[in-house]
C-alpha cells in the first residue's frame, strides 16, 4: 500500500514535469536568445538624469532582462559608477528578480493569464515603491 502510494506520487510528479517541460524549455530558450541579442551597454545608455523617470526606465529594463540576480548586482554596480541614482538602481535590482516579461508566456500558461498579468503589474509598481523606501531609509541612516 505504502509502496504503491510512493510509486503513484513519483508517477504524478513525472507527469506534472512532463506537462510543463515544453513551457520550461521555451522560457529558457527565450532567456538565452534575449541574453545573446541584447548588449550589456544598452543598460547605461537609456537614462535621462531625472531620478524618478530613471527609476521607471530602470524598473522597465529589469522587467525585460532576465538571468542570474548576481548579473543584476554587477550591472547595478556599473550603473552606480556611471552616476545613475540609487533610486533607479534599486528599482532595477528588484524588478530584475520579481517581474518577468520574458517568462510571462510560461507563467500565464502554467498559473493563469489573469494571475500572471496582475502579479507582474503589481510587482513592477512595488519595485519602484521598494526602491523609494530603501533609498529613503538608507539615506536617513
Amino acid at each position, binding site marked *: 500500500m505504502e509502496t504503491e502510494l510512493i510509486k503513484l506520487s513519483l508517477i504524478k510528479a513525472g507527469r506534472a514535469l512532463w506537462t510543463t517541460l515544453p513551457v520550461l524549455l521555451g522560457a529558457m530558450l527565450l532567456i538565452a536568445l534575449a541574453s545573446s541579442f541584447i548588449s550589456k551597454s544598452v543598460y547605461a545608455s537609456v537614462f535621462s538624469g531625472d531620478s524618478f523617470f530613471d527609476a521607471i526606465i530602470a524598473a522597465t529594463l529589469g522587467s525585460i532582462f532576465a538571468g542570474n540576480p548576481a548579473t543584476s548586482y554587477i550591472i547595478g554596480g556599473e550603473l552606480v559608477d556611471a552616476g545613475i541614482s540609487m533610486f533607479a538602481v534599486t528599482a532595477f535590482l528588484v524588478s530584475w528578480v520579481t517581474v518577468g516579461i520574458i517568462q510571462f508566456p510560461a*507563467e500565464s500558461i502554467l498559473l493563469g493569464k489573469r494571475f500572471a498579468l496582475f502579479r507582474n503589474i503589481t510587482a513592477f509598481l512595488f519595485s519602484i515603491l521598494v526602491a523609494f523606501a530603501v533609498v529613503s531609509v538608507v539615506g536617513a541612516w
Partner: protein
Amino acid sequence: MVSEKSYAGWYFLVAVLVLYLLSYLLSPENAFAALEFFYSLILKLIPIFVLVFLLLALANYYIKPKMLAEHMGHGSGLKGWFIAVTSGIISTGPIYMWYPLLNEMQKHGMRNGLLAAFLYARAVKVPLFPILILYFGLTYTIILSLAIIIAAPLQGLLTEKLMELFKNENSSIK
C-alpha cells in the same frame, strides 16, 4: 493554467523555435551564442530539475488538498503568509523552475495572493548576499531585504484584490 490535455506549452515551444530560426537568418553567430547559453543553462539547472521533481513527489505524497487549503488556502491567515514568504526566500534556482510545483499547489487550492508573495519573496537571495554587500554595503543589503520581505505579502494582497476586481464573466482575461 496548463492542464495535462493542454497543447499551449507545445505551441509556445514551437513559437520560440520559429523565433530561433528567424534569429539564425538575422545573425547566425548570435543564434549559436544563444544555443550555447541555453546549453549552459540546462547543465546548471539539472540539479534544480531533480529538486523540483522530488518536491513534486513529496507534495503529492504528503500534501492533501484539505491540508493545503488549511495552511495556504483562503482561511490560512498570518501563518499562510509566513509560510509563503519564508519558502520564497529559501527557494533556489530561476523563477520558472517553480511554476510546475506552484501550478500543482494552485490546483489544490493555494491562495493566489500567497503564490504572488512566494514569487516576490524570491528576490531575497541569501546565498548572493556576499556579492550584494560587496557592491552596495551591509546596511543597504539589510534594508533592501527587509523592504522586500514587508512588500511580498502586500504585493500578494494587491494581486489578489485586482484579480477579484477584474473577475467578471465578460472579461477576456481568464
